């Protein structure tokens, strides 16, 4: 992750800002002081050398006037006590070098003749000429050379040492001050941030930030606490409303279910009567009813029975949505085997080639999962009716996301994929009842059960090329059903 100043905690940010400011101010101050001292040092040195030059020049007048070289040399040698004077020379009035001395380590030759009056810096070396005058009469010229290097270096070293020491002390003081001061600013913000985090992480809106300090931070804390109060109130109100609505909905749902159950249940009795009495009529007065009449009666009876089946299926579907689920380990392979036996027994004249792959044990409600397999396998058997032999395979593979995907594949009549969405709806049929019997509620049940287990259902098919139905189930028990 890239480091960003934004991610630094406010305490360190404040501390950093304060220390950075102190250091910058100090550096600027030291820097300007340094420059001032340096310039001062140079001008002072130049002035001092000028004074020294005038004194030496005043002393040398007679030595020059009376060409007394030893005396001149003696005057110049007084300069040797000043180790920074690296060279000195006296020139006669007509420009000849009269006498001179130079430090042993000085390499360059002395100027052969006097130059312009005045002292000038060349790097760290200050050098120049001073006329030797007596009553306005020029008797000669003095040359002085002064190396500010050693003094400058000592001064620089001392200055840097002092600057570092002062900076160190100031930094420590600044750090202590900053620590004390930043706490005033950051502590309430940190507390606020901690409170906000507690709120967002635990969803606990009852906590409150401690009101500390004054000014904007106090305003912020108060506003934050006020918002928390509002959120808490809103939450309570929402929860109350949701609970009320849920209760209303539950009541309405129960009423509806009870209504549809009783309707379905109550519808069965008259249907049985229609079926029963149609049968009785055929049995009792069958001879007196015309052939056409008997046919009508048979249709009435079969329609009543069909309606009864529909109502039974609806009751099952309704039960699947309402009934409590009991989770336990369910061996899918066992369920499939049992169901195949049942289906073989029901269709003794069908040749079906079964191909059953390894199937897992999954947590689930056993009767419900049985219902899923019953529907899918029965569908497979049903829609492979025209095939001889029919080929039905069942298999499973993990999907890599904690679920297992079970498929039931057949080589039956298949369906058009554009209706794949309708497949799992209640009473949705892709084939006419004359072709394949059924109520169109089986796959709706499959979807509802799988969904209640936390899985999904889908299908792939092509007309005349068979169909494959898939459903996924979590390999571990879902936390909430």
């Amino acid at each position: 992750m890239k480091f960003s100043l934004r991610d630094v905690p406010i305490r360190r940010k404040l501390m950093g800002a304060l220390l950075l400011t102190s250091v910058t101010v100090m550096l600027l101050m030291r820097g300007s002081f340094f420059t001032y001292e340096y310039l001062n040092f140079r001008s002072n040195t130049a002035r001092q050398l000028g004074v020294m030059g005038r004194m030496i020049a005043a002393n040398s007048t007679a030595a020059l006037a009376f060409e007394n070289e030893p005396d001149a040399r003696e005057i110049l040698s007084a300069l040797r006590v000043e180790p920074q004077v690296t060279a000195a020379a006296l020139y006669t009035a007509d420009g000849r070098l009269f006498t001179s001395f130079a430090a042993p380590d000085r390499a360059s030759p002395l100027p052969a003749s006097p130059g312009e009056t005045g002292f000038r810096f060349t790097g760290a070396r200050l050098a120049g000429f001073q006329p030797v005058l007596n009553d306005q009469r020029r008797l000669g010229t003095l040359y002085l050379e002064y190396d500010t290097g050693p003094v400058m270096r000592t001064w620089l070293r001392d200055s840097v040492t002092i600057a570092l020491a002062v900076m160190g002390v100031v930094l420590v003081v600044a750090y202590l001050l900053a620590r004390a001061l930043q706490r005033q600013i950051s502590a309430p913000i940190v507390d606020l941030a901690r409170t906000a985090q507690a709120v967002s992480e635990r969803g606990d809106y009852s906590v409150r930030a401690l009101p500390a300090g004054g000014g904007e931070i106090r305003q912020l804390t108060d506003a934050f606490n006020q918002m928390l109060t509002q959120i808490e109130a809103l939450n309570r109100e929402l929860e109350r409303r949701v609970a009320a609505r849920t209760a209303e909905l539950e009541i309405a749902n129960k009423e509806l279910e009870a209504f549809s159950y009783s309707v379905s249940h109550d519808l069965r009795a008259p249907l049985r009567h229609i079926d029963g009495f149609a049968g009785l009529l055929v049995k009792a007065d069958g001879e007196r009813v015309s052939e056409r009449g008997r046919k009508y009666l048979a249709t009435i009876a079969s329609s009543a029975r069909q309606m009864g089946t529909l109502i039974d299926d609806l009751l099952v579907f309704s039960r699947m949505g309402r009934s409590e689920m009991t989770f336990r380990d369910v061996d899918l392979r066992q369920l499939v085997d049992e169901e195949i036996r049942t289906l073989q027994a029901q269709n003794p004249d069908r040749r079906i080639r079964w191909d059953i792959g390894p199937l897992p044990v999954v947590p689930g409600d056993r009767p419900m999962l049985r219902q899923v397999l019953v529907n899918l396998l029965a569908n497979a058997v049903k829609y492979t009716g025209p095939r001889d032999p029919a080929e039905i395979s069942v298999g499973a593979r993990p999907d890599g996301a904690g679920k297992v995907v079970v498929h039931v594949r057949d080589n039956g009549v298949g369906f058009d994929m554009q209706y794949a969405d309708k497949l799992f709806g209640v009473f949705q049929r892709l084939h006419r009842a004359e072709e394949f019997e059924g109520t169109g509620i089986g796959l709706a049940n499959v979807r509802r059960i799988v969904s209640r287990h936390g899985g999904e259902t889908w299908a792939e098919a092509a007309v005349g090329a068979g169909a494959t139905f898939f459903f996924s189930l979590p390999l571990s028990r879902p936390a909430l059903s």
Partner: protein
Amino acid sequence: MALLNPGPVLRPGRRWRAACCLALGLAFGAGPALPAPPSREYQVKAVFLFNFAQFVDWPPAAFPSAGSPLVIGVLGEDPFGAALDDAVRGETVASRPLAVRRFRRPADIAECHILFVSRPASARLGEVLAALDGRAVLTVGEADDFAARGGMIHFVTDKSRTRLRINLDAARNAGLTLSSKLLRPAEIVATARNAP
């Protein structure tokens, strides 16, 4: 350190040649001898004479007026030739022009501020000093013991260089003030007890 000042030296060869010329001139009697060109030594001494004017203060009474010249006198035989005139030409000291006068005998000494007493004239130094008694005249000479005998500044040749030997008391007695700077490169002596 290299000796940069060649020094006011008259090399032996040169002196011998000068003597030969003089001898020849006298021997053949070809009129008065041409004044020999001044030697380096006397060029230096001429400049020194002028320089004394800068380092010595005369009492105001020594000058007839504010603008009157400062006179450098030469007593007896003049060894400078044109050198002295060259040295003072166009110069001023304390806004006084300079002038050179030559005197043959002590009795001839007129207004004068610096007096160079030539070697021959120094033989009768007592007479000279007596003639100057009470006048603010700086006496300069080159004869042996010139300062010890009552002269004020003695040109001493030391290792081919001209050095100063100063009789400070003599100068003071004449009412002259010598700059301490002048004394710096000089040797101070007193008048000997047995001086004339």
